[in-house]
């Protein structure tokens, strides 16, 4: 398509800005979608892609900026409004009603079809839509048991039934096999022929470059470039995505010792990850970098015995161990600070003290088997001082603390198990800049005390700043380990996106 033949755009986002608390998620970005175009949107974790999609689908409202549909400004106040405008999205995990059949799933969002279900008519229409997509599917079959790929097809049919004009595909291929990806692309191209504007988001470069007509790149909530595919190469795209501004590089101290603590060889778990091998010394911080879906957390859960590995070996101090459950991991000196404080980490209605001593309660039992409250409080008080947890006392319920302070309670709880290997999963997610700096300082201190630390983080500048070495994963496979000197944003991102050439 050349500029002279471009039809008027279907959807135009102009100078959109959106701020959440202290984070500027989007900073005056623009995006133009033309009919009959597949438009790829690229960006690292936190580049602003999700926020833009949520604004397009009416989940969030932009702080400033305008949205134009067919050249006239519109306000997308809700997801229903977005549907009314013909804007639909499909995601990696399809949203299905498993007990309803295919036809019902297609028409589930339709309002104004009267109070009664006209089964015959609904089935006929559903069949017609699927035929338009050239898909063979029994519309009376329940959605339960359909493959992810088929469910996505049903979602696309649902979008079509709503007269879709803009279809957002948010990492639709992450859970699909190569064959299913090909089928999905056929569907996408068919929709393109029918004049639908498609916004395609993927971390897989080869997919982007095989299907997109235009490639737009975001970084740090800003628009970096938008160009026809022919003008972009995978290398130039990664270069544009990398190079994130770094507020301030944390000055890591030199804490690595030459005492080897952990060796992992060929660790794997069917359906999650395989071939993970690394060595970790006392005082070393090993960063786990990768994009969402790289399965880094699964490696952490395997090392901690929550979801044990089924192949490979783990050696601690040269002795091989098969970690089967968290108790065993703890006795080996492994601690895992999970990323989801609320769901996995803290018992919110319980006090700071009770949370901190929970994994090690045995230590606080008297000869009679009763908990020595005084001893508990003394230890908790120490952590409160050491980690500067802001609370009036250690008896305060954890639910009353801010995110940063909850994170510190989590850390205290696991440090209290006196670990030798500390696995931190997204330790700074969702906490403010000040608390973040404190956590970084703490990681440095802990490494200086001789702890071996694995830090899983999706914040690339953070990983690079904090790690002595960086292990990069992509879709369950280890792509490489870079030393602090070698690990540049471009290299790490290149490896995370599967571009060997750059790595």
């Amino acid at each position, binding site marked *: 398509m050349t500029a002279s033949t471009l039809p008027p755009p279907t959807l135009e986002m102009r100078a959109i800005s959106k701020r*959440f608390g202290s984070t500027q998620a989007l900073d005056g970005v623009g995006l133009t979608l033309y009919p009959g175009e597949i438009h790829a949107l690229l960006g690292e*974790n936190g580049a602003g892609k999700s926020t833009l999609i949520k604004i397009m689908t009416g989940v969030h409202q932009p702080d400033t900026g305008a949205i134009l549909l067919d050249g006239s400004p519109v306000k997308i106040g809700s997801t229903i409004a977005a549907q009314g405008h013909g804007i639909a999205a499909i995601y990696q995990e399809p949203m299905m009603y498993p007990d309803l059949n295919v036809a019902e799933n297609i028409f589930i969002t339709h309002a104004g079809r009267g109070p009664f279900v006209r089964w015959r008519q609904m089935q006929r229409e559903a069949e017609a839509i699927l035929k338009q997509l050239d898909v063979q599917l029994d519309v009376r079959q329940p959605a339960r048991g359909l493959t992810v790929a088929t469910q996505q097809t049903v979602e696309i049919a649902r979008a079509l039934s709503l007269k879709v004009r803009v279809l957002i595909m948010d990492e639709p291929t992450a859970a699909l096999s190569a064959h299913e990806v090909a089928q999905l692309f056929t569907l996408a191209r068919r929709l393109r022929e029918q004049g639908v504007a498609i916004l395609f988001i993927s971390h897989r470069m080869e997919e982007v470059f095989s299907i997109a007509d235009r490639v737009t790149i975001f970084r740090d909530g800003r628009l970096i470039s938008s160009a026809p595919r022919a003008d972009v190469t995978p290398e130039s795209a990664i270069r544009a995505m990398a190079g994130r501004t770094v507020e301030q590089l944390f000055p890591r101290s030199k804490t690595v010792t030459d005492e080897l603590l952990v060796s992992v060889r060929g660790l794997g778990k069917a359906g999650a990850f395989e071939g993970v091998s690394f060595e970790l010394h006392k005082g070393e911080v090993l960063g786990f970098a990768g994009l969402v879906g790289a399965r880094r957390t699964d490696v952490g859960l395997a090392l901690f015995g929550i979801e044990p590995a089924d192949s490979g070996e783990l050696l601690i101090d040269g002795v091989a161990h098969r970690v089967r459950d968290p108790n065993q991991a703890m006795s080996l000196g492994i601690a895992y600070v999970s990323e989801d404080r609320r*769901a996995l980490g803290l018992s919110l*209605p319980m006090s700071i003290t009770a949370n901190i001593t929970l994994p090690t309660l045995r230590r606080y039992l008297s000869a009679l*088997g009763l908990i020595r409250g005084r001893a508990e409080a003394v230890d908790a008080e120490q952590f409160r001082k050491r980690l500067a947890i802001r609370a009036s006392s250690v008896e305060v319920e954890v639910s009353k603390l*801010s995110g940063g302070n909850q994170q510190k309670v989590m850390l205290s709880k696991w440090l209290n198990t006196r670990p030798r290997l500390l696995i931190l999963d997204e330790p700074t997610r969702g906490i403010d*800049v000040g608390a973040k700096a404190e956590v970084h300082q703490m990681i440095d201190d802990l490494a200086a005390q001789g702890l071996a630390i694995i830090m899983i983080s999706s914040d690339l500048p953070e990983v690079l700043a904090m790690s002595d070495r960086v292990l990069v994963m992509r879709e369950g496979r280890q792509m490489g380990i870079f030393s602090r000197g070698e690990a540049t944003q471009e290299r790490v991102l290149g490896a995370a996106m599967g571009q060997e050439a750059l790595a």
Partner: protein
Amino acid sequence: MSWIKRSIRPEQLRELSLVALIIVALLIFGTQIENFLSARTFNRIASSVAIVGVVAVGQTLVVLTRNIDLSVGSIVGFSAYFVGMQLNGNPELPPLVAVLLACGVGALLGLVNGVLVAYGRVPSIITTLGTLAIFRMILVNYSDAKTVTTDMVPPWVPGLAQETLVSFGEFNVRPMVAVAIAVVLVFQLVLVYTQFGRRLYAIGSNPEAARFVGLPGRRIVLLAFVICGALAGLAGFMFLSRFGNITVVAGQGLELQSVAAVVVGGVNTFGGSGSVVGALLGAFLIDLLGQGLIRWLGISEFWRDAILGLLILLAVASDAVILNWLRRLWAPNELKTRTPSEAAPTPKESSHGV
């Protein structure tokens, strides 16, 4: 005012407000009903609260783990009947053995519940609704619809309910009341000072976090059900001692009463918070209101269940609204430490990416 704030913890608000409510109720009934504040009233309330209270303690343990035991009434009935029949067949049975037998039968039935819930992964409300009917059915079959009567058991059994340990004026502390108080105290200590107690709260407040620290979640839930069953069994013996006549419907309704006591007593139905002292106060308040309203307004016995239901709803509503508001009033310090940027919603995008 500030010294009050300092000396009272927000978690104790519920117990304190229950005490306040009980005092208000006593004042109203005392002024409105002739001879209400008499030893006789309290003897009567104490004897009936003793049974509900023991059941409610067990129920508290189960509710703390985010479960519920609806079969306690059937367990009470079964163990009362079973022990009654054993005593009938073997009058020489030592009292302690009889009591242990009751607890053992209850524990066994509790084990059935616990295994199904903890290992069979059947939701407890369904499991215990089923066993409520099944245990009752077994009782009907086993008893052949016959009744245990007072003259079938050794005289010490009904005698126990009439005996007096200590008297405060005309108020007589019956052995059963002493047992109930002992049970409450023991389990209050268990909850606060033992590993098992702490783990109950941990499992109830966040099962996933409990799994991450390696707590044996299933065993703890199982144990909660077994203890609940054993206490229901003990209550069954108390029931036998108090009433002497055990029919196939003995203990029916205790499931509702115990759940009501627990909920009114401030145990969170979503698990993780509450105390057995609260549950006992809840049981006391419910019985007091029941007795008082019947005598004051002359309403019929059938109203008691309606009052129960109303109290449950009120307790749940107050939990959601009033207590939250009170807590915020109580602890402004903690909220102030929250910086504005942290209080704002965290953008998922900033970390989650696409």
